[in-house]
């Protein structure tokens, strides 16, 4: 009977692409760093578990909150990709639609290299993540994004925005924005509270973002991926229908963001001018041809009231 070889690796699912070990009794070179990703994708994680996992806590890096979010956002097959994309969209909308929200969005810039000496400062500046937007250099400037007094996100060149790990600790408090649930940002395009006018403002903001990211494409790596995500966001917003905004009125804003051109978009804050037209998902015009003094009806949900 032939003696086939079984790799000394964890359970892998059918169809994995991990190269076979060809002989026993010896070490065999299977690849380089990319092989680890092949093994990661080949692990038999079980469908049941895959659907229920709500966090990756196994990344041994103090910046894991950023690096896990970055992986989840930029790798489509990542088990948390859908959630990360929704959170990223939610965070971008928080900036785009800040003019429509009651809680002021602010940003305080921190430079790791100039933090005062101390244990925590030593820890955070020792092995910060590197990023393609800085051509592989480590990040130094980080924006602490707050809604009201609550820290909600980091503005940084790895993913532009990433949620704070402590957000779920405040889930008993009223959410900072309507597209937030249980301490997680949601995709605002799935939020019924977003009006066509707000979608138009969001789309306008995303056009700027696409332009700014497009200008940075030469960096390669993750930058085209982020651009793809932004374009897809813009497409989805437009597909849902946006109001015919006649004018985007800029609002003055002072945000202390990392000093890189790509963050300029986050400093753009608009209100959509409708030139006297009212636009709402709840407002239905009367069918033409009806003889009535009414111009339309407003749908009211008493349960909301």
């Amino acid at each position, binding site marked *: 009977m032939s003696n086939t070889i*079984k790799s000394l690796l964890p359970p892998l699912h059918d169809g994995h692409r991990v190269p076979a070990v060809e002989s026993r*009794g010896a070490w065999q070179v299977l690849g380089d760093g990319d*092989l680890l990703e092949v093994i990661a994708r080949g692990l038999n994680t079980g469908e049941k578990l895959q659907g229920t996992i709500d966090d990756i806590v*196994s990344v041994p*890096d103090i910046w894991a909150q950023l690096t896990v979010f970055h992986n989840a956002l930029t790798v489509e097959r990542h088990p948390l990709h859908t959630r990360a994309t929704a959170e990223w969209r939610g965070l971008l909308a928080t900036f785009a639609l800040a003019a429509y929200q009651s809680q002021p969005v602010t940003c305080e810039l921190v430079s790791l290299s100039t933090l005062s000496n101390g244990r925590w400062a030593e820890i955070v500046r020792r092995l910060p993540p590197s990023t393609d937007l800085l051509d592989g250099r480590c990040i130094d400037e980080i924006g602490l994004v707050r809604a009201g007094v609550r820290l909600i996100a980091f503005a940084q060149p790895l993913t532009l925005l990433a949620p704070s790990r402590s957000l779920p600790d405040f889930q008993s408090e009223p959410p900072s924005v309507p597209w937030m649930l249980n301490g997680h940002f949601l995709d605002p395009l799935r939020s019924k509270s977003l009006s066509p006018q707000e979608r138009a403002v969001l789309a306008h903001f995303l056009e700027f973002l696409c332009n700014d990211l497009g200008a940075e494409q030469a960096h390669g790596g993750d930058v085209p991926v982020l651009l793809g995500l932004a374009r897809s966001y813009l497409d989805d917003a437009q597909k849902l229908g946006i109001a015919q905004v006649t004018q985007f009125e800029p609002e003055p804003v002072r945000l202390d963001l990392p000093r890189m051109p790509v963050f300029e978009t986050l400093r753009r804050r608009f209100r959509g001018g409708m030139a006297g037209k009212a636009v709402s998902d709840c407002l239905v015009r009367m069918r033409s041809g009806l003889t009535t003094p009414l111009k339309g009806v407003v749908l009211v949900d008493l349960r909301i009231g």
Partner: protein
Amino acid sequence: VTSNFLLGLGGTGAKCVEAFVRLATCGVGPDSSWIGLLDQDRSNGNTSRASRVLSEYAEVRTALRTPGSAQLGSSRLLSMALEKPREGWAWAPEERVSASLSTSVGYSGLPAAEQALVEGLFSDEERRMQLDEGFRQRPALGAALTLQSVTSASPVWKDLLTALQSAGHGVDVRVFLVASIFGGTGAAAFPTVARLLRAEIEQRGLGDQVKLGGALLLPYFSFPPPPEGDGPAIRPNSAAFMMQARGALEYYSRLQSQKLFDRLYVIGNDPLIPLRHYSEGGATQTNPPLLPELVAALAAIDFVQNRPEGDRGTVVAAGTGTNGPVGWEDLPFAGVRSLALRAEVAATVRMAVAWRQLYQPALKGEQWRGCAREAWYRRLLSQDGNGAAGTDASQGVIRHATAVFEGLLQWLVALNRGGAGDTRPLALIEDSRLAAAWTSSEVDAVRLNDSLRATAFESLVPPNHGPSLANVFSHMTYGPIPSDCQGLGRVLAVLRDACGSKQIENF
């Protein structure tokens, strides 16, 4: 000063270090090595056990390899010189009892912006988690405290930097780290220490002189779910291992693409080996030895002893045959040399049994007087003085050697009984001949049989037969005596020679 450095990180790293030391007892491995353990949970049963094994090895080796007293000479037995870290075998990133991340970094006294950074990176629960029993599957926390403690002032780091200094003087240095990808301390420290070391290596321009290797244990065991009821908010959960391992591997992929390790050995087991007991850490976390840990020890030996060359940044793995039990020929030991591995271990196992059964009882206490006129005793011990075996020093050596050899046998029995799970037997030794049934997960609870039939002795290490006890006795009485041995070292060296397979043909 050695040029080989082995650092076992966390509980799994400690178990791999134990396997490395067990092999060193048998004469397998490099001639010298510095070995350290890093575990936040120093009370962890696996880590304290490894510390004990290291101490026992160091003690008996000193006793048997000190010029002027008992001397093993050129025997492979206990040949590896062991260097101890300046501050003891085990080191914890955060030494304070009942510390948490918050207390450790002085969270409440930080400026507001730095407090916000802590909040953004760690949840409230994580910030307040007590760390006296490890990092409880939160390696990001472990990474924070490892970074905090690995400074130019920390003792273990000083030892490792000394290694780099020797490299600066032309020595080819090998540093090997071993840990599991899941869990807390080991998972946290493995890439963190590696990244810090790599940064030092690059900064000093020593990439050609210092090679950094690692064995990363991917999921290879499972344990029962935590019991219901009170317990820490964050608890080990084996069901999530695979998913968490996937997340961590993606992170490692990026690091290794930047060629963090010169050579990275990845090891797992399919199916996962089910452990019987759940433990939240501390002294109760003591698991039986498992095959992947032995394989990780062989990876360390491959890296520091065989010194494989090749492109920096490679990832290597091994495999076993699928037919029948896992045997010696399945173990990765430089190809056909797995037979050499078997030969070294087999000779030491037989020696340990013969020592325990025949020679130690004959030399212990005042018993030596009863055999002082026998030919083997006169040949091997009389030249050191008539009462050579009766001195306090000799009796101390007998006690230490017995403890080390019994520990080796217990460990091998435990490994062979369930080291690859219930569905995959191991055939490294005939464990049923050595010990009674064993149902505990404690290696120390393995009860060794007091006596072994002569035929059983010959077939202790499959598949080949070794010498009989009569052959061994003949060798002790008439066989060659190495000239560089002395006292009880001479007895043990000749006994181990006698227990080698080649002695079958000689007698």
